[in-house]
């Protein structure tokens, strides 16, 4: 709430300024006559892309939401202990391969002969 001012209230809201007679009526007439001629560009027709753009954006948004849902439901099912349907990439080694590898890398000649004697092959 604005504070009342006795001195301003006494003077009032009149400013004492005036205009020539019929000033505003004449002004409008003169002003409109003096407006320069202008060429205004005709409003452009929207292109096909501009018309379909909102629908494309909306479709992209729904596709994004669908992908996110797909991703999150996959993550949550793994956390719950469900096995994700992941393709197996490892395969079982052929029979005998592991034993041969072990022999080649970890067993020296002495140990090898000792094993052979123990098994009674010699």
């Amino acid at each position, binding site marked *: 709430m604005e504070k009342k001012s006795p001195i301003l209230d006494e003077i009032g809201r009149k400013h*004492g*300024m*005036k205009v020539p007679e019929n000033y505003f009526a004449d*002004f*409008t007439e003169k*002003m409109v006559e003096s407006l*320069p001629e202008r060429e205004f560009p005709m*409003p452009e027709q929207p292109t096909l892309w501009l018309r379909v753009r909102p629908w494309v954006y909306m479709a992209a948004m729904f596709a994004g939401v669908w992908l996110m849902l797909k991703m999150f439901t996959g993550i949550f099912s793994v956390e719950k202990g469900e096995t994700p349907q992941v393709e197996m990439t490892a395969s079982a080694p052929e029979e005998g391969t592991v034993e041969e590898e072990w022999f080649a890398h970890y067993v020296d000649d002495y140990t090898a002969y000792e094993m052979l004697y123990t098994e009674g092959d010699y």
Partner: protein
Amino acid sequence: MYLYRRKVEIMQEYNEDIVIEQLQNPATVRQAFARVVERYSQPLYWQIRKMVLSHDDANDLLQNTFLKAWGSIEYFRGDAKLSTWLYRIAVNETLTFLAKERELRNLKADDADDFLLLNIESDEYFDGDRAQRLLQEAIVRLPEKQRLVFNMRYFDEMKYEEMSEIMGTSVGALKASYHHAAKKIEEYLHEHI
């Protein structure tokens, strides 16, 4: 009586939404702009006149305001109110004019625009009494922005929200500005009456 009747007629005939629509159509823009001039020349004139005090300067600035508006009418898209857009142009024109006048007289931006009082004294279109003249003297001594705020609020009783849109200043800052202006004016009047 005629003026009052004419004003009522304009208010009844004038529909801002229709006029804005017509302004955006090249076929009807000129006719619509004529209605805008008819509708807004008075409020804009008084806004300018109270800042520059001289009728001749106010008349020139009002013409410039409408010429600027006409020159850029295609950029008005109806986002703001038409009145706000026109007031903004008028305020800019007025402030630019005052800045040029100050420059001519080697005055700083903060100096009181005392030279404007000469306009009142020599203007045949001022017939205010002593109190009204003193009030104008007090207003002229205010900083430019405070003067603008005081005129809009005190004489036109414009809402702070509308002033805020025109001047791009917050409502709080405008209220403070008006309060300071009114206080300074009261002090000046107490000293001189």
